[in-house]
Structures are given as structure tokens and as C-alpha cells.
């Protein structure tokens, strides 16, 4: 499974990517929308984990662009905002498969990823 992590906090995505790597999941990361799009073009990914707020572009827009190019790509959103209920309600609208609240629990993340991939 190849995963792309996008967040403006490099420290966060870097660490998260390493943690996933330790667990045998191949993870790459990007800190801007452009870098993320470039990455998607260069490599094949099964899953993208996006922050809702990325400098220059919103996670929702980025999701739309990627989805248009690579319809097979699956998505999980991360956000520092709001309550859980809101995002489960909101995900139906955006087509995002899952929302996660920061700080992310790694076990929860992997659990969601597995569920999403085996769907």
C-alpha cells in the first residue's frame, strides 16, 4: 500500500510517514498542494491523507483535482477543527471517505486505512 501524506507541518508528516514505514506501509509526504500534485503524477498511490487546510489550496479542492486525475485514489482527511459529528456528516458531501481529528491516533489511522482499502 502506497500512501501520500499532505500537511503544511513538515515535522508532522515526516514523523507520521516514518511511523507508517516502520509498520510496513510505504508513505511519502508533501507540504504544499503543488508538491502533492507533482508527487501524485510521479508515483502511484493507493491512498492520500490530506489536511483540510493547506497553504495556497484547500484540502477539499486538492481532493477534487486528484480525484479527477486518478479516480481510483482513496482519501482520508485530517483536521484540527471541530467535532467528530460534523465531519462524518460532512464527508458525505465532499465524497471524502474518512475524516480524522488531529492529533491522530496511529492505530485508528491504520484501522481506517485498512477498512478503506479492503472495501
Amino acid at each position: 500500500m502506497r500512501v501520500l501524506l499532505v500537511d503544511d507541518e513538515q515535522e508532522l508528516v515526516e514523523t507520521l510517514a516514518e511511523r507508517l514505514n516502520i509498520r510496513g506501509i510505504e508513505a511519502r509526504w508533501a507540504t504544499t498542494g503543488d508538491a502533492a500534485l507533482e508527487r501524485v503524477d510521479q508515483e502511484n498511490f493507493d491512498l492520500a491523507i490530506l489536511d483540510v487546510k493547506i497553504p495556497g489550496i484547500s484540502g477539499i479542492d486538492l481532493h477534487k483535482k486528484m480525484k479527477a486525475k486518478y479516480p481510483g485514489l482513496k482519501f482520508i482527511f485530517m483536521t484540527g477543527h471541530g467535532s467528530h459529528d460534523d465531519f462524518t456528516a460532512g464527508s458525505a458531501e465532499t465524497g471524502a471517505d474518512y475524516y480524522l481529528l488531529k492529533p491522530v491516533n496511529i492505530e485508528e489511522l491504520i484501522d481506517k486505512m485498512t477498512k478503506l482499502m479492503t472495501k
Partner: protein
Amino acid sequence: MKFLNRIKPEFWDHRIFSEGPYSSHFNFRRTWYAAVCLTSAVVLAPLIFMAVMDYRATRHDVESEILFTTSRLVSNTGRTLSYFLDERKSALDFIVHDNNFKLNVNPKRMEQVLENLKKSFGGFTDLGCIDHSGIQCVYAGPYNLAGKDYSDQEWYQQAVKRGEFISDVFRGFRHVPHIVIAVKYYPSEGGPFRVLRATLDTAKFTDLLSHLEIAGHGDAFIINHEGVLQTPTLFHGEILEKISLPIPDFAPETRVFEWVTEKGTPLVIGYRYITNTPFILMVVKQKEELLKSWESSRRELIGFLLISVAFILFVILWGATYLVNRIFRSDQKLIVSLHQVEYANKMASIGRLAAGVAHEINNPLAIINEKAGLMKDLFLFKKEYTGNEMLMGLLDSIITSVARCGRITKRLLGFARHMDVSIQSVHLGEVVREVLGFLNKEAEYRSIAISIEEADDIPLVATDAGKLQQIILNILNNAFAAMEDNGQLRISIRMAGEDRVALTISDDGCGIPETDLKRVFEPFFSTKTGKGGTGLGLSITYGLSEQIGGTIEVNSEVNKGTTFTVTLPFVAEEKENK
């Protein structure tokens, strides 16, 4: 006191909170005093001034009238008396100058003359002729006085000296009060002088005076120059006694003056010196009796004044109270709405601040979380690190703490998020729990037990969750303030009718006294004044619950606790204009 309390206007007990240059504008009691005093002064001063002027003018008129009538009465009576005496003196004059007057030799003739005098003039008692040695040689009259020696009598000496004389009233030989008129003459047949003497009865005088109609317990009498009464009086002494009033100073004309007796009775005294006699005519009236006629007009004037003043004062008091109360109420409304705006702004600022802080903290928290997670991963997956129990424990504690921080920021964000949105569907129990989250720590420290009873069938409520949060937070804050440590807080959520839900929050705190219960939602009503209470919390809560179409009720029992019940419609009737 009860009545006063009932009519006491709202602003009366209003305390001034604001200090500063314009705080006097909010001293409504002072405004009221100023309005009442100024208006009263402007209206009543001219009225009272006019009334006093009128009173004095009328009184002056009445007094002048009294003096004038007294003076006229004295003048007229004095003239009559003067005429009475002059007439009799002239009669004697006429007799002595009659050539046929040979009285000294003919007592019969003397008696005839006396008889004639009695008939035509009246008042004569007897008639006698005294020779130059003072012996009465001829006498006609009821007393046997022929041969009496008058040479040492004063009237005789005066008559010899001045040619004629009118005496005071005296008793003389006969012991009956009488007046003597004496005329000196020289007999036509030649020889030394003789004196013709007539005695006048004082009854004529007395008659004359007693028939006067004198108002005001009046008294008319005659005194001589020494103040001895010449006629009887009603109130001022017996005949020939010394009068108790002062002897008035000589004046050629009639005079009137006022005098206050030793007993304090004011008198009006008119007098006249009767020319060529030793007599002074006096008319004495009691002033108070005379002023009685003036009493009724005075009563009318004072009555009119009092009724006018009472009516004016009533109108002024009512008007001032009404106006100041109106100003007070609109002022209160203004202040409350200003405070509500201020409160809303404050809450919004707090919300934004909380959201900002939460968001900012979230990212470093996430990094800490991941770094700690990575370290833990390394310990788990790399063999060289495994087995260090202590380090693992430390890492777990970091992760637990981060998770706790995460919950706090989530709660803050959740709270702030509601403020930006107007209407949203919320789960009432969730909102209560969210708000309680902020108070959990305090409840824990103070060992306050919180129980939530929630009916199963409560649907979502479409309302302004931000306002709902504030309502719940305010009520909970009040409950916490009222409760002792180890208190018990009961919250229940149940249906209230078909389209409403009721949230009940009961504490077992100090309770609210019956008298205060009606006023708890009034703005600025506070029992925590001076301890940081503004008295606005519940008033704002009331306003907020009205804005979302809810109602709020309070029940309380002193020392048992207070219950607030908020009833909300499932679909809010937004009342605020946005």
C-alpha cells in the same frame, strides 16, 4: 410604609454603578428632586407671593375701615356732648343777662326758672345763686342747700376766676354724681358779683353714650383729664374710678390708636378732648371682634391657597415621577441592550480566541504526538530499544497527556464553533455535556455530584446553539456559585408538550428568598453586588432564551435549592433581527 412601598417609583432604589463625569445623569432620585423643587419653586412662589400680598392688602383695608368708623363715631358723639354742655351753659348765660332776673330776692322765681329749664332742656337737677362770699343765698331744687358755704369749693373759685366753669363729675354734699355749671355775673341792680350755679344729672350723659351702637364689644365713656371715669362703663371700671387704660395725649381733633391690654387683648381706642370742659370722650372696641367679619374672607383665601398648592404639588409630583420613571426605564432598556451587545461581543471574542488558541496548539500537539508515537514505535520495532520499561512508561504518559490536551482543544473548538453559526440542529444532552466539560474540574475539586437524566425520545433541537450554550453556562455558573462543596446538581431533559423540550437544572444551594424571586431576571438585580456581580447574568440569560423562542422559569426555596427550567421549541422561532 406599605403604602409608600406600593407607590414608590422604580427608579427610587436604583443604585448608581457607574462612576465618572456623567454618573450624575444616572442619579434619578436627584433628577426627580431637581424637577420637583424647580417646578414647585417656579409655580408656587408667585402664587404664594400673590396670596400674601392679597391677604395683607385686604387686612389693611379692613383695619383702615375699623379705624375710620371708630373715628367717625367718636367725632359725632363728641360733637353731641359738646353741644349738650354748651347749650346748657348758654341757657344759664341767657338767664343771668336777662334784665328781669332778680333771683337773689325771689326764690319763687328761681324755682320757676328751674322748672322751665327742666322742661325745655332737661338734665338740670337744681339751681342756686351764690354771693361773693361763697354763701348760697337762693336755692331751688330737691336738696336743702340754701345757706351752704361754697367759698372753699374748687368749682366756685374757678368760676370766680374765669367767669364760667364746668366741673368734673363729683359727689359733693349730696353724695350723688353730678356736674356743676357755674356762671359769674354782676347783678343789674348793682353790687358785688354773684355766681349762678346749675347742677346737671349725669344720667343724661350716660343715656347718650349707652344708646350708641358700637360694634365689637364696644364701650363708650367719658373720663376727665386725670383719667377718672365720669360715666359708667361696661368693661373698664365703675364711675369715679381711675381707668385702667392710658390717658391719651391731648389732641385738638379726634384720634384713634391701638392698645394691647395686660391680658393681651388688642383694643382700638378712639378719643376726643371736648373743648372748654374737663372731659375726654373715649370709645373702646375689641379688635378681634371687629376682625371677625374679615375671618370668612380670610378663610376663603387660605382655603383657596391650600387647595391650589395641594393640587399643584400633586400634579408636579405625579408628572415628575412619571417622566423620570420613563427616562429611567428607557435608560435601563438602553443599558441592558448595550450590555447584551457587549456580552455577545465578549463571548464572540472569547470564542474566536479559544478557537485560535486551540487551532494553533493543535499542530504542535500533533507533532508531539507523532514524535512520541515514533519513539514508541522505535522501541517496539527495533530490538536495541526494547525492554526499557521506564522509557516506555514515560512515553505512554506523554501520549496520554497529549490526548488530554487534544480533548481540551476539541472542546474549545466545539464551543467556539457554535457561535459562528445561527441555527443548527443539536442534541440538547450533547450541548449540556459540552458545557459541563468546562465545569468538570471545578465540580471535581468541590466534590459536586452532577447527574444527568435524559429521556430517550428527545429529538434534535434546531436552535441557535451558541445562545443555548450561553444560557446553560450562565445557569450552571449561578448554580455552582449557590452551592456548597459536596453539593448535588441534577439536570434533566424531558419533553414538555408535543413540540417543546424542557431542560431542568436543580441545585441544592442557598436558594433565593421569595421577595427576590420575582426580580432575579431584572437587569441590575444582584445580591452579589460588590463581589463582582453585575446583576446582568440572569437578565441576559432571560433575553437570550426569549431570542430563541424559549421560556425560562425559576423556583426556589431558601436553604433547599433552586430550580431553573428552560423550555425550548424544537424549531427555534428566531426573534432577533439579523
